[in-house]
């Protein structure tokens, strides 16, 4: 009896002590960075300034939020199979979050569902994927970007003339599976840009889109297609290129031929493209925010892991760059992110 009371006293004292010490805890902060997160980022391609900038943004966020970032990308934008395999690997490696820039809207859908099944949140960045299980999409609206491109090109052509479009897709895949089913295995952003462009141009009766070519992401092929387009349509007054490789291919051909009469609106920035703009070969370029995309994707991933509610879509916007604004300080950083 006496003994029991003794232990009871002891227990109460410990409780009191515990209560005393627990008050001295520090205040909570918005994002805890004590724990290292394991985040996998899979993008369309392992080269190109655009994806490098996405990676840089992701790395900046990784450093800030104590994230171990695993960056993966296939050699080509059209390699859907490789990308699926990479997502599979990430599921196997039990990544905390998978950030995905899908090469194919439908092609990656199944594997994303699989990741969701294993309770791995998937964030899609830059290009959407056809799965309802995607937690959030971060990137610019491709439809709006397409419209922006069309708006400028129409303006440059003073509202009349023939336009050729150089878009991108994963041709090889399309050919393989196209015969068996009607599923669109193309990249969502390519389709959306094209749709946005065509919808805008449809308002102008004297502007005609005479041809749309699709290139896999290889500059040489884009050049070939441009030459073909110029050959087919001698009265062509404007070219819209809807991604980086297509733009570079088209611009190279225009420069090579010295065709100052053809106006061109490019897509995505690269120092080479800036040179073309400064030289006056390309009149404008629609610029996305690859750095912000990468950064925000990782930041949102960390937020998801901490149970913070994130918006379904984060629109990082697009910008139209031309000779006038390319040297504005805020645009310089966007266009030339690398200090060399």
């Amino acid at each position, binding site marked *: 009896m006496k003994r029991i009371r003794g232990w009871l*006293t002891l227990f109460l004292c410990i409780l009191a*002590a515990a209560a005393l*010490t627990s008050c*001295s805890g520090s205040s909570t902060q918005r994002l805890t960075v004590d724990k290292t997160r394991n985040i996998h980022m899979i993008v369309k391609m392992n080269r190109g300034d655009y994806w490098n900038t996405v990676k840089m943004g992701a790395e900046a966020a990784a450093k*800030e939020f104590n994230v171990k970032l695993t960056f993966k990308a296939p050699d080509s934008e059209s390699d859907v199979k490789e990308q699926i395999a990479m997502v599979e690997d990430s599921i196997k490696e039990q990544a905390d979050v998978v950030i995905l820039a899908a090469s194919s809207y439908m092609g990656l859908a199944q594997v994303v569902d699989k990741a969701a099944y294993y309770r791995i949140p998937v964030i899609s960045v830059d290009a959407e994927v056809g799965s309802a299980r995607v937690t959030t999409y971060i990137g610019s609206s491709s439809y709006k970007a397409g419209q922006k491109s069309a708006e400028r090109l129409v303006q440059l052509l003073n509202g009349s003339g023939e336009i050729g479009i150089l878009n991108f897709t994963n041709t090889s895949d399309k050919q393989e599976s196209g015969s068996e089913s009607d599923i669109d295995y193309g990249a969502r952003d390519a389709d959306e840009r094209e749709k946005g462009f065509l919808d805008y141009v449809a308002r102008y009766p004297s502007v005609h889109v005479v041809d749309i070519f699709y290139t896999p992401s290889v500059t040489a092929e884009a050049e070939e297609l441009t030459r073909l387009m110029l050959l087919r349509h001698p009265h062509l007054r404007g070219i819209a290129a809807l991604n980086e490789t297509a733009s570079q291919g088209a611009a190279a051909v225009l420069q090579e031929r010295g065709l100052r009469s053809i106006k061109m609106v490019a897509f995505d920035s690269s120092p080479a493209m800036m040179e073309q703009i*400064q030289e006056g070969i390309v009149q404008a370029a629609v610029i996305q925010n690859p750095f912000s995309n990468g*950064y925000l994707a990782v930041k949102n991933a960390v937020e998801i892991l901490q149970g913070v509610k994130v918006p379904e879509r984060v629109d990082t916007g697009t910008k139209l760059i031309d000779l006038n604004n390319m040297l504005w300080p805020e645009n310089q950083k966007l266009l030339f992110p690398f200090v060399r």
Partner: protein
Amino acid sequence: MPKKPANRFPLRPQTRAARRGKFTSKLASIQVILTVTLTSIAVLVTVIVSFALYNKFAKTAEENASLNMQQIIEQVNYNLGLYVNGMRNIYEKAEQQIEQNASIDSRVLHESLSTLLESREDLVSFAVFTPGGSLVLDVPSAPMRRNTRMEEQSWFNAPKKTRAISFSQPHVQNLFKKRYVWVVSMSKMISYTDHGTSKRGILLVDFNFRTIDELSKQVKLGKRGYAYILDSLGNIVYHPQQQLIYAGLKYENVEPVLEYAYRSYLDESMGEKRFITVRTLNQTGWKIVGVAYYDEIVTTKRDLNQFMRLFLPLSILCVIVVSVLLSAKIARPISRLERTVQQVVEGDLNTSIYVCGPYEVEQLSKRFNLMLQRIRKLMDQIIYEQETKRKGELEVLQSQINPHFLYNTLNSVIRLAERGKNEEVVTMIQSLSKFFRISLSKGKNIITLREELDHIRHYLVIQSFRFKNKFRYEIKAQPEVLNCLTVKLILQPIVENALYHGIEMMPDEGVIHIAAELRSGLVVITVSDNGLGMSGDALKNILKGAVKSRGGSGVGVRNVHERIRLYYGREYGLSFESELEEGTTVTVTFPAHYGDDGETVKEGAKSL
């Protein structure tokens, strides 16, 4: 005699009283009081000391962190200053060479500038422009791009307003067809000689921004802390997250920074506590701003906090354990003592206390044990005395029904009957019967003196028939003494003694005087005879039981003496006076008591 004398022990009722107050007394036990007191004091002291130390350490750590950060920023400032000085030297050298050279397009000048360019890795280009914007000289030579829009750029416009070297913000150099390079441009109006005529132009020296970038990038202030550079107008020259700032994802509160050239302060405008340290680079007016996250840079504080959270409960636990053990150690002997005393109170006198513990407790235990021993001894003594008493009485009683005595008496009766002395036979039988009745007294040990005297009278009547006219007797008693109580059968052995030893052998008639009186609260009974008397030796031995009556009851006067002493105390009993041939006087003394109950008297006697 009951086996357990303790059952009648008078302390018993107190046990119940003690039990009634058990709950309150237990809570107020020494162990609980000690534990609570020790624990609270120790915990209080530990907590106070810990918190005082914690605050002191934390403050020092904070100051150190702040100082450390200031030193880092100071260092960056110094390095940047050195670097900018180096840039300035290069610029001045280039300016000197251009001004001193006879012609702006001479090979010599071109070569010396090329050498200068190669001397430093971070030097990108030298160029001289006319105030109108046309290129006069460029090293290394490269075709100009179209659409440079140089008249919009700060390096081109600044020299027109100031005579000092102006530093541009880092920007992408778009002048030459080579590549786009991030540079810091230095520019100033200089004079040069072109084909013999002195002209004024703008000397542009581009430095790769990489060096400044790297210089600043290396600054690590905690895990997330960083440094950034502002120009005098508040434009960001360098920021590790410049991209995010331009994209509107990050924001830097530069207003307070711009107000001061040299300052450290705590900023909370970003929702988090941050240490901001500002230093200004004199040559360019740039401000180097160090940003450290408070919770991070003060890791010592956090470590300390963590340590305290671990240490405090542990030490409090230790304190509690120690105080519980200590109080148990102190209280254990006392509670053991208490338990033993309780046992004793409940009647178990055969227990004893284990003597150990602190001095006081040890002494207390020792003395308690001594006391217990004493009590046991006394109890034993009481038991012994009681037994002796009963044995004595039994002996006396047995002596009454001694066959020898009875035989003699009955013989006398027969003889009287034979002689036809019926009256005497009746007297004899009557006395004998009364003699036995009083002897038995319904088992009582204490009777009145009246009864005792009656008893001895009947005895003397019986004996007088036996010792025909051999003696006469006289019994005198004060009336007030008759109601006094006495131990029964004390006179018969004395009288028997007197008869058999004093008078039987006497040739003359013997006389036995029995007198009882009160003398200052004492009952004094004297039995005197005029018999043979005793020698001094016999007198000495008589109370030792050495003298045995011959033909008597077999119970000595010693038995009487002892019984009186057992009942009343050692100072009472018998005393003898005797002289040979003169006679013996036995005096019985015991305190006077009145009462109608033998038991009461016994108790009363005990209490004396």
